[in-house]
C-alpha cells in the first residue's frame, strides 16, 4: 500500500527532473551570453577609443635653427619681462624657415611654407627666451610645433598618396616636409599642450586643461551643496518626519525628480539662476547649481537607503540607554550609514561629471580658451569639450576627442574606485 505512492513520486520527479535541469542550463547560457555580448561591446568601445585617442599623446614638431634676433625680441635692450613676453616670436620662426629654404621667395609660396608650422610655434621660442634671456642674440635649435595638417600627415591619418586636391597639404609643402624629414628635423614629441592648455581653433594648441578646471569647479559647487543638503534631507525624511500624505508626496516627487531628463534641469537653471537671479552665463557656479539639482534626488535616495539599512537593534540600543533621537542619529545611525551615503554621493557626482546636456542650456558650451580662475569665470566642462571637438571639422580633433573621452573615463573610474574603497574602508559589521 505504502510502496505504490512512493514509486509514483519517484517516477514523477524523474519525469520532470531532466526538464528542470535543462531550464537551468538554458538560463545560465543566456546569462553568460548576455554578459559576453556586453563585454564584447565594452572591449570594442575601449579599443576604438584607445586606438583613436592614443596618438593625441604625441605631437609632430619641427626642429628649426632659430636666430634669436635681439632687434625682433627686445629692440631697446631693456630685458623687461613684459617686452620679452610680448615679442613677435612667430616672425623668428618664419625667418628660420625662410633661412632653411632660401629658394622660396614668392609671396604665395612663402605663405605655404609658413603654413607648415603652427600659429603657436612661437610659444616654444618665447618659453626659451623668458626662461633664459641671455639666449637672445644666439641661434638655437628649437623643436617648434608643426601645423595640425602636417601632424595628421606625419601620423599617417591622412595618406600622402592621395591626389593633391584631396589633401590639405600641397605637393610643394609635401616636398619641403620630406626634405625636413630626411634631415631628421621632424619628430613626434609628447603633447604637453593637450594637457596644459585650453581650447583653441588650432588642434595642435587645443587642450583639456581649462575644461578640466571648469569641471572641477562645477563638481566642487555640486558637492558642497548637494552632499549636506541631500544627507540632511534624507535624515529628516527617514528619522524625523512623520509618515503622512505630505511626506508620501515628497517621497514620490523625489523619486520622480531622479528620472527627469537632465536637459530640463538645464532649462530650469537658465530660467532661474541666470534670468531670475542674474548669475553669470557659462559659469561653473551655475553649472554646479544645476548639477546639484540633478544629483540631489540621487543622493537623497541613496542616503535614505543607507539609513534604512542600519539595523533597528542599534537604534533601540541607543534609545534604551536614554539617547535622544538626535543623539541616536548622530552617534550611531549616521556613522553606520555614512559609507552608503558617500557611495551614493560619489556615484551621483560621477554622473554629474559626465553630464553635458544641462550645461548646453546655461552657456557652458561656449568656446573658452582661458582657464577659469574662480567658479564665476566663463568655463566649459570635459564632456562639453568632447562635444565641441567632435563637432569640429579638422581631422586632428578626432584623436583629441577620443583622448578627452579617455581622460573623462579615467576620472569616472577613479571616482567609482574611490566609492568602492570608501565602502570597503568604512563599512562596519554589526
Amino acid at each position, binding site marked *: 500500500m505504502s510502496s505504490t505512492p512512493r514509486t509514483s513520486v519517484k517516477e514523477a520527479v524523474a519525469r520532470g527532473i531532466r526538464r528542470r535541469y535543462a531550464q537551468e542550463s538554458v538560463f545560465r547560457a543566456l546569462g553568460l551570453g548576455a554578459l559576453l555580448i556586453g563585454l564584447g561591446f565594452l572591449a570594442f568601445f575601449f579599443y576604438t577609443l584607445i586606438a583613436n585617442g592614443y596618438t593625441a599623446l604625441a605631437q609632430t614638431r619641427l626642429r628649426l635653427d632659430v636666430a634669436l634676433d635681439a632687434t625682433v625680441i627686445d629692440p631697446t635692450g631693456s630685458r623687461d619681462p613684459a617686452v620679452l613676453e610680448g615679442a613677435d616670436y612667430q616672425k623668428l620662426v618664419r625667418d628660420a624657415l625662410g633661412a632653411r629654404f632660401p629658394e622660396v621667395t614668392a609671396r604665395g609660396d612663402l605663405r605655404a611654407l609658413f603654413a607648415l608650422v603652427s600659429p603657436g610655434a612661437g610659444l616654444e621660442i618665447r618659453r626659451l627666451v623668458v626662461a633664459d634671456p641671455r639666449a637672445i642674440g644666439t641661434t638655437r635649435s628649437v623643436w617648434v610645433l608643426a601645423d595640425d595638417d602636417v601632424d595628421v600627415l606625419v601620423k599617417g591619418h591622412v595618406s600622402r598618396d592621395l591626389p593633391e586636391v584631396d589633401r590639405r597639404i600641397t605637393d610643394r609643402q609635401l616636398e619641403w616636409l620630406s626634405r625636413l624629414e630626411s634631415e631628421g628635423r621632424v619628430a613626434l614629441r609628447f603633447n604637453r599642450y593637450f594637457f596644459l592648455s585650453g581650447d583653441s581653433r588650432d588642434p595642435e594648441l587645443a587642450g583639456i586643461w581649462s575644461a578640466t578646471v571648469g569641471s572641477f569647479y562645477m563638481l566642487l559647487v555640486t558637492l558642497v551643496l548637494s552632499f549636506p543638503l541631500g544627507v540632511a534631507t534624507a535624515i529628516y525624511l527617514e528619522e524625523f518626519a*512623520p*509618515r503622512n500624505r505630505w511626506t508620501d508626496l515628497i517621497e514620490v516627487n523625489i523619486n520622480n525628480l531622479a528620472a527627469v531628463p537632465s536637459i530640463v534641469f538645464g532649462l530650469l537653471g537658465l530660467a532661474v539662476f541666470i534670468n531670475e537671479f542674474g548669475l553669470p552665463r557659462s559659469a561653473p557656479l551655475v553649472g554646479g547649481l544645476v548639477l546639484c539639482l540633478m544629483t540631489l534626488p540621487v543622493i537623497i535616495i541613496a542616503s535614505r537607503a543607507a539609513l534604512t539599512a542600519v*539595523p533597528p*537593534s*542599534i*537604534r*533601540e*540600543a*541607543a*534609545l*534604551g*540607554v*536614554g*539617547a*535622544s533621537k538626535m*543623539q541616536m542619529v548622530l*552617534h*550611531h545611525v549616521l*556613522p*553606520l550609514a555614512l559609507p552608503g551615503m558617500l557611495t551614493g554621493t560619489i556615484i551621483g557626482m560621477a554622473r554629474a561629471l559626465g553630464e553635458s546636456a544641462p550645461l548646453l542650456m546655461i552657456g557652458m558650451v561656449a568656446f573658452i580658451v582661458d582657464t577659469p580662475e574662480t567658479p564665476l569665470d566663463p568655463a566649459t566642462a570635459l564632456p562639453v569639450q568632447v562635444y565641441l571637438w567632435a563637432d569640429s571639422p579638422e581631422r586632428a580633433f578626432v584623436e583629441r576627442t577620443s583622448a578627452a573621452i579617455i581622460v573623462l573615463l579615467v576620472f569616472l573610474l577613479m571616482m567609482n574606485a574611490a566609492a568602492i574603497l570608501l565602502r570597503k574602508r568604512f563599512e*562596519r*559589521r*554589526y
Partner: protein
Amino acid sequence: MSEAAPQVAAGLSAQPVQQVKPVAEEGYRTVGDFTAAKPVMQARGVDVFYGDNHAIQKVNLDIGLNEVIALIGPSGCGKSTFIRCLNRMNDTIESARFTGDITLDGENIYARQMDVVMLRARVGMVFQKPNPFPKSVYDNVAYGPRIHGLARDRAELDRIVETSLERAGLWNEVKDRLEEPGTGLSGGQQQRLCIARTIAVNPEVILMDEPCSALDPIATARIEDLIDELKQNYAIVIVTHSMQQAARVSQRTAYFHLGKLIEVGDTDEIFTNPRHKLTEDYITGRFG
C-alpha cells in the same frame, strides 16, 4: 468590548496620578495579587493598540524593588508589548497607541512633563538579541554616562565603566581588551556587555526582553546568576519563553494570554499551584 473612553491618552494626562486604583475589569479578571511589596512601577488599566490590533487589554501590574518578575506566555500574548510600555519604547512604533497609567515612583511616565530621555535613563532595557554598538567595549559602557553627563572627568568615567563591567561579570574577561570592538565578543559576552551598558546609567528598573533567547545554556546560566545578583539593587522585569528560566530567576510571575494578564503571583505558587485553567495548561505544556 465596552465603550469606556480611554481614561488617559498617551502623554496627555495633566497630573501625575497619585492614587492608583485597579481599573474595573472588562470581561476578564486577573487571578492573583498584582501588587508588589515595594512597588517601583505601577501599571493600571494599560491598553495598547497597534493600529486596530488590541495588543494588550486592561493590564494592572506592579514592579517591585529587589525582585525579579517574569512575564511568561505564548508568542503574541503581549508580554513584550507590555515591557516596552514601561520605558515608552513603543513610542517609536508609529501605529502604537497607549491608554492607561504607568507610574514610576508615583510619577506618570506618560504625562506630558515626563521626559522620555529621562525615563529611559531611569528604566534601562536589555534586548532579545545582543546589540552592542559597533564601538569599543569601553565606549559601549561609557556611552550612557557620557550622554547623561554622569562622570565629571575621565577617571570617574573609567571607574563607572569598570564597576559596571564588574557587576555584569565581564570585567575579568575584557579588562585587557577595552579598546576592541564590542561586536567582536561572543554572544554571551555581548549580552553581558549590554547589561553593563544598561547598569552604567544606574537605572531604577531593568527591563529584559528575552535576554537569553539567542544564547547557549552556559551563557544563559551566567546571565541568570547575574540577574539574581542585580536584584539586590534593582527592580527587574524579564520576559522569557523558558518556564524553567522563569522558575529559576524570578520571585513573581505574570502569565499573559492573548493580550490579557491572566494570572499573577509568587513564582512558586504559579508553578506548583496555578489557579487559572489557562495558566495550568501553559505551564504543564498543553500548549505554547
